[in-house]
């Protein structure tokens, strides 16, 4: 009996210790590898003459760690057409495919020298890491291939990117070093709420994370037009026609003025 009891206690304490280990390790490492993050501004206004912008992000990370920055946007359902051959030689948009739970924006920023190690599925960084979250309709479609092609499409418009060697470190002080990176905000990044995340990595393991929200919002003329177009579409349509006709007539009159009235 006592032997059994001893075994039970040993197992219980062993399991308890097992449960505690990651917690202890985590808190110990958090203290050591703590990462902080600060955005120069947390709201970007999209006004009349907006053409994308840049945003400075800074923070501190433990001296022995590396930091990766992830900018990602609202998850959405993307409707695509897969190209294929028709009649054996004509390339056309053929099959409908839907990618679900795909981020509208996905940008990775890595420091100099260690980019390859820091973009990996294990760390949850890079395009490959996104693949497991995304589902495809119909399920028979080749998810990896379609997503790879979709990434190319998004890279063209600048909303998907891996900016290698873009994070700069400052001089170490008290076991910490500062970091700085200039985020590229392309004009194709739509109004919405995005997440900026700094991930501290040491020896191929994520040690700590810090996250901050980034809001892009329409202001001025774009805000007025957008609300009119979506909230009063019929009025908007008539207004668009009216202004077009008025401009056409005005230019016509200006030109006739030049040629002399009849």
């Amino acid at each position, binding site marked *: 009996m006592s032997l059994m009891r001893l075994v039970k206690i040993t197992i219980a304490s062993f399991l308890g210790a097992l449960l505690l280990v990651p917690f202890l390790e985590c808190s110990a490492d958090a203290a050591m590898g703590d990462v902080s993050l600060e955005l120069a501004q947390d709201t970007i206004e*999209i*006004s*009349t*003459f*907006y*053409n*994308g912008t840049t945003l400075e992000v800074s923070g501190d990370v433990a001296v022995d760690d590396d930091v990766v920055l992830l900018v990602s946007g609202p998850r959405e359902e*993307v*409707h*695509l*057409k*897969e*190209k294929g051959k*028709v*009649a054996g*030689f*004509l*390339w*056309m*948009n*053929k099959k*409908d*495919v839907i990618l679900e739970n795909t981020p509208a924006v996905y940008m990775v920023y890595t420091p100099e020298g260690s980019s390859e190690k820091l973009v990996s599925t294990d760390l949850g960084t890079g395009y490959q890491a996104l693949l497991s979250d995304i589902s495809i309709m119909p399920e028979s479609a080749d998810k990896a*291939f*379609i997503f790879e*092609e*979709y990434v*190319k*499409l998004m890279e*063209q*418009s600048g909303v998907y990117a891996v900016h290698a060697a873009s994070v700069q470190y400052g001089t170490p002080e008290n076991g910490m070093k500062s970091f700085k990176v200039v985020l590229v905000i392309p*004009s*194709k990044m*739509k109004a919405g709420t995005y997440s900026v995340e700094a991930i501290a990595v040491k020896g191929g393991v994520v040690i700590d994370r810090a996250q901050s929200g980034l809001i892009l919002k*329409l202001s001025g*003329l*774009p*805000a007025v*037009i*957008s609300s009119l*177009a*979506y909230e009063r*579409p*019929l009025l*908007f*349509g*008539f207004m*668009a*026609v009216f*202004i*077009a*006709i008025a*401009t*056409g*007539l005005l*230019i*016509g009159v200006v*030109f*006739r003025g030049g040629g002399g009235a*009849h």
Partner: protein
Amino acid sequence: MLHMYLPIAGNSVNVFLILGLGGFVGLLSGIFGVGGGFLMTPLLMMFGIPPTVAAASDSNQIVGASTSGTLAHMRLGNVDVPMGLMLLIGGVGGGTVGVQLIKLLRAMGNADFLIAITYVIMLGGVGGYMFWESLQGLKKDKQGIAVTAQVEEKESVKGGKTFLQRLPMQYKFEKSGCEVSMLMPLSIGVLVGILAAIMGVGGGFIMVPVMVYLLRMPMHVVVGTSLFQILFTCINVTIMQSYSNHTVDFVLAVLLLLGSTIGAQAGTAVSKRLKADQLKIMLASLVLLVCVKMTAGLLMTPAIMVALKGGH
């Protein structure tokens, strides 16, 4: 460089680039009486505007350009209003049929194939025939035979009279210089309307050759009347697109408009100085160029194997 943000397209564009693009297409519109949708939409897509927004905003822009163009041509006496109205009524009816046809084909799953093939055949056929025909006209001119397009057109009217006179509802279209049944432009309008709906364009580049070759109208009246008909078609499209799809980008349309209205006026002046055959051969070359580009796009392996759904 000055950029402006397009709230509906969700992108920003270089102001001067769009003004220039509007000016270029407006010039063509003034010269040939085509809306230019078959050129503008692909060009806008090249500059990162989503296909649906490009097509809808272009319609908005054409309203302005064709107002200015129609006005200029009216002053020159180049608009045959009764003819334009008949084509318009037919076009609206045909467009409605065409939209339903596309819905049916999409459900059957081969709409895209039909659209692409229609494009290539129409552009190639229309462009090729116009090019060949105008080249013959220009050659005759060179040989010293004073055959102007107008004389040729009148001769052709003689040839077609027996068939056309048999149809009921005969009407004398004075500006067009022909007496035909009202059913003729009406049914042509229906046909072009169906084609335009299938191809997702205003149909100016089909309407112009049809008026020249089927109705035997003088080229300059064709241009004015076509613009008149396009104006009303595009007013309808702009309102429908704004209301049901929210795809009209007002900022984009106004920028294109500023360029195109000025371009259209310049185009009308240029059109006055050119001979009918010269006009036709230029439009034919342009149509053929678009046809070649489109065919190349169908034959070459694409760099990216997926496209965002929405355009053709």
